[in-house]
């Protein structure tokens, strides 16, 4: 889960990293009040979970509180790369002497975290990395040791950063490990004209798997998720809303992704990703089907299950249960194979629901679901 800039800023502050004075709001009138409190002249920054905000007009300087209100009104409600702006952060401007870049990223191939640092920070860091890789230091961090002061000094020297940034690197590592983050990035890290080292903008991505030991995750989560995704999450189902018309349900992330691709290969567009997981109960299947059927964009549903641990007759029971409780108006194509497949097919055959079609292979099932979505 990506944090908003203002959430990242708050974490940095808690871990003792200097950040600009700032406040967040969703109201233009409140923006004026905040600007006054911050000294009048402020930077108005759209809060969206995507990069390239500045270039998209989401970061602007306002000279006085009235201008802050006007600017906030202009930015709020706009859309940056598909992300609606629901809040702005107003921050005290900082006089910058020089800009740097520091981050800890997960190096998946090496199975460890990597410190990335450069004395050339700012928005063009990707370009610096591409054109002059020698200007970007990449230092692996031994997980058993973490970022000690010796390691921080090594990073600082390799990147040509001011020696005082070593302390920031240690504290950022504490953010990474203390918050179970998989990415912590400060860009730019600046030296102000008054000589302070300050984190001006930041990105933090948290590890969803660590929710069980991170008490604050609930409040950090975005309340503005898709209603269908919220309904699925409440039932403990892995669901991602997509923009097509064929609802897809399967077991196992890989098989569901493959099913989406096969549907797309048949000329239709998948409406969602839904994984009922391994060893799913009839109830999970039934809940999953209810979620997909409640999506107004869905015109047909494809259930593709290869029973490994999952028993196909249990899946079939779940489908029947959902059909008995939800008034289904959309055709269903079901492909069951593997563990207890014959029994599962028999359960569906006995129920003989007019909207349920059985298919014997994944490809055939996808073709049929695509055709049904086209004609319903």
């Amino acid at each position, binding site marked *: 889960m990506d944090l908003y800039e203002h959430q990242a800023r708050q974490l940095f502050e808690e871990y003792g990293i200097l950040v600009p004075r700032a406040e967040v709001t969703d109201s233009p009138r409140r923006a004026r009040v905040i600007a006054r409190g911050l000294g009048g002249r402020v930077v108005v920054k759209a809060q969206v979970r995507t990069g390239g905000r500045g270039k998209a007009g989401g970061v602007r300087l306002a000279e006085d509180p009235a201008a802050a209100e006007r600017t906030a009104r202009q930015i709020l409600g706009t859309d940056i790369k598909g992300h609606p702006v629901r809040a702005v952060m107003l921050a005290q401007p900082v006089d910058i002497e020089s800009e740097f870049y520091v981050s800890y990223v997960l190096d998946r191939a090496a199975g460890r975290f990597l410190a990335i640092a450069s004395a050339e920070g700012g928005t063009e860091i990707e370009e610096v990395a591409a054109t002059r890789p020698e200007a970007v230091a990449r230092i692996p961090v031994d997980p058993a040791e973490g970022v000690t002061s010796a390691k921080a000094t090594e990073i600082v020297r390799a990147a040509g950063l001011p020696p005082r940034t070593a302390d920031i690197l240690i504290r950022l590592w504490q953010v990474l490990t203390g918050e179970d983050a998989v990415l912590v990035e400060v860009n730019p890290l600046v030296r102000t004209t008054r000589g302070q080292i300050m984190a001006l903008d930041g990105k933090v991505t948290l*590890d969803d798997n660590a929710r069980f*030991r991170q008490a604050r995750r609930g409040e950090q989560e975005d309340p503005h998720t898709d209603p269908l995704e919220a309904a699925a999450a409440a039932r403990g189902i892995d669901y991602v809303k997509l923009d097509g018309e064929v609802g897809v349900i399967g077991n196992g*992330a*890989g098989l*569901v*992704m*493959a099913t*989406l691709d096969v549907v797309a290969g048949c000329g239709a567009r998948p409406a969602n990703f839904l994984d009922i997981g391994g060893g799913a109960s009839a109830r999970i299947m039934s809940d999953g089907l209810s979620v997909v059927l409640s999506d107004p964009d869905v015109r047909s549903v494809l259930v593709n299950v290869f029973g490994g641990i999952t028993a196909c007759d249990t899946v079939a029971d779940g489908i029947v249960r959902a059909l008995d409780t939800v008034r289904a108006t959309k055709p269903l194509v079901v492909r069951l194979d593997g563990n207890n497949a014959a029994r599962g097919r028999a359960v569906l055959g006995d129920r003989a629901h007019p909207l349920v079609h059985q298919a*014997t292979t*994944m490809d055939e099932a996808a073709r049929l679901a695509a055709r049904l979505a086209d004609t319903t």
Partner: protein
Amino acid sequence: MAVFLTKDSKVLVQGMTGVEGMRHTRRMLAAGTNVVGGVNPRKAGRTVEFDVPRHPEGLGSAPRSVPVFGSVCEGIEATGADVSVVFVPPAFARAAVLEAADAGIGLAVVITEGIPVHDSVAFCAHAATRGTRVIGPNCPGLITPGQSSAGIIPADITEPGRVGLVSKSGTLTYQLMHELRDTGFSTCVGIGGDPVVGTSHIDCLAAFQDDPDTELIVLIGEIGGDAEERAAAYIRDHITKPVVGYIAGFTAPEGRTMGHAGAIVTGSSGTAQAKKKALESVGVQVGGTPTETARLVLARLGEPATRSDVTHS
């Protein structure tokens, strides 16, 4: 010979006495796995009785009793175990794998899903210093059909054969095993869908290249990271056996996690298209669907496409 796991492997199960551990230990025993013990410090000294179904079906079942040890170390001393299968919940997985590595186990197969990535980084790094191979986490384990199964891959899908398979996904592994059930497999390894895993596609490619029982390798990948691109470079430089690939996730949107923690396209990196291109550029045929992938395998092996595309109801 197979890779990583044979009939001679002696398997301990960490978390055997939990619900998942019990269910899958029974299935492993039925698959022929030599399960020599479970580990649970609170139940040390007891034995657990398993009612193991005999294959083929209809032959009834036979009781098997498996001892529970207080630690992996005790289990190894008493039985000579060389493999551990880890079913413990996410919060305890780190300690379990560190314990197994410190006890000197050769292979730790971590089935547990939902382990924080900092924990996986820590135990994978520690295991490497102890000479322990970690497979997983968040994986279905591995199976050498006809010999042994360490994990949760169903043993009744297919028979021993000449194909080696490595995959990030459990159910896609089952699907391919099913499609190629008449051909059979030397070993199938599910390496797991997390961003950090102990054993990579490359490790498995190297093992299959050296395995005389493996004639052809199937490589299944999915969106996220660059493991498949790295595998492609490795294939170009080191693999002489034919490789057939499949990649899932062409329709995945950017920035969304698709079920597996590691399955995410970030910006323009980690896309299925880039992975397919990388594999094809080194001469790996990549199937558009699992079924087409199976057909490519049969064609390379010179076998007729008997049942792979046809159902068997």
